[in-house]
């Protein structure tokens, strides 16, 4: 399959959160999200409760997909950074390790230059973590241990969801 199931474990989740928490402070940002390219929210730090994070994740992924399509049309592999400037708030969106999307929301307490600088360093750290995560999943698969947490669920369990 072109896009295997993404599995996030406690350990890496904590590592990812530590890294983006630090970025939040260093870049003076309001909110930071990590989104899977398929539109699933992986994590968010900062003033997340003020936003509809699920919608934000889906639209960000759509945005990245659309600009990725544009990039291919002009012979580029992808546009790895997108920047949206608003009256008060701005969005800096970048692709990390080819698979994950890092979204930084900031206002005039920060600047594009600062965000770009800090994001660059953070991207490298995140890439390492996601690389590790992928390897972990692959190894588990090789060992034959399923990543699926409810391999033993019954048809009744599934039916109960819909009752």
């Amino acid at each position, binding site marked *: 399959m072109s896009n295997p199931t993404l*599995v996030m474990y406690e350990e890496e989740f904590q590592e990812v959160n530590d890294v983006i928490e630090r970025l939040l402070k260093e870049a003076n940002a309001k909110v930071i999200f990590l989104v899977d390219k398929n539109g699933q929210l992986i994590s968010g730090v900062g003033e997340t409760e003020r936003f509809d994070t699920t919608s934000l994740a889906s639209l960000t992924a759509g945005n990245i997909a659309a600009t990725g399509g544009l990039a291919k049309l002009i012979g580029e592999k992808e546009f790895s950074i997108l920047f949206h400037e608003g009256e008060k708030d701005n969005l800096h969106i970048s692709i990390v390790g080819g698979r994950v999307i890092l979204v930084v929301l900031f206002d005039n307490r920060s600047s594009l230059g600062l965000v770009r600088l800090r994001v660059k360093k953070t991207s490298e750290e995140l890439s390492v973590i996601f690389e590790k995560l992928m390897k972990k999943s692959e190894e588990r698969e090789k060992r034959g241990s399923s990543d699926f947490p409810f391999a033993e669920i019954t048809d009744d369990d599934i039916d109960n969801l*819909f009752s």
Partner: protein
Amino acid sequence: MSFINYASREINCKIVYYGPGLCGKTTNLQYVYQKTAPDAKGKMISLATETERTLFFDFLPLSLGEIRGFKTRFHLYTVPGQVFYDASRKLILKGVDGVVFVADSQEERIDANIESLENLRINLKEQGYDLDKLPYIIQYNKRDLPGAMPIEELRLELNTTNVPEFEACATTGEGVFETLKAVAKLILVDLKKGK
């Protein structure tokens, strides 16, 4: 593909509603949105033109409940049905876990149905998927219209692989939840197998 988060104990899956223009994909989602309890759904997003034709996609996040302590969430997407939006359709199929093909039962739309179904196969293949290996359901929509073709004829043209099928009238909601439940179940069963 699906996203399993052990830290937040969640499983996220993506369902795409596919089909020709004006077959009722958005209407399916709108009905699900209207009839779902507020705590089980997120905001429905429609990226549409001024004439309410889908431009990029509709999006509706649903959370169905828990299985063995894991929250199951389904993200429902529609594609733009109009032929010339093919580039956008391809993008939406990325990471799909299950597909609902919404067919327009009217006789004059049979060619559009066939064309859209072929387009679905091609676009999936480009992303490395095989429709015959994906959880996949057909919904025959607009059964209430006078020009609706008999099910046997539709089946002959559209359901050659004999996948689960449902009759529907998305405007009144008939068959809408049956379709959704069936595809969600197929996805979970598929995941259970560890595919």
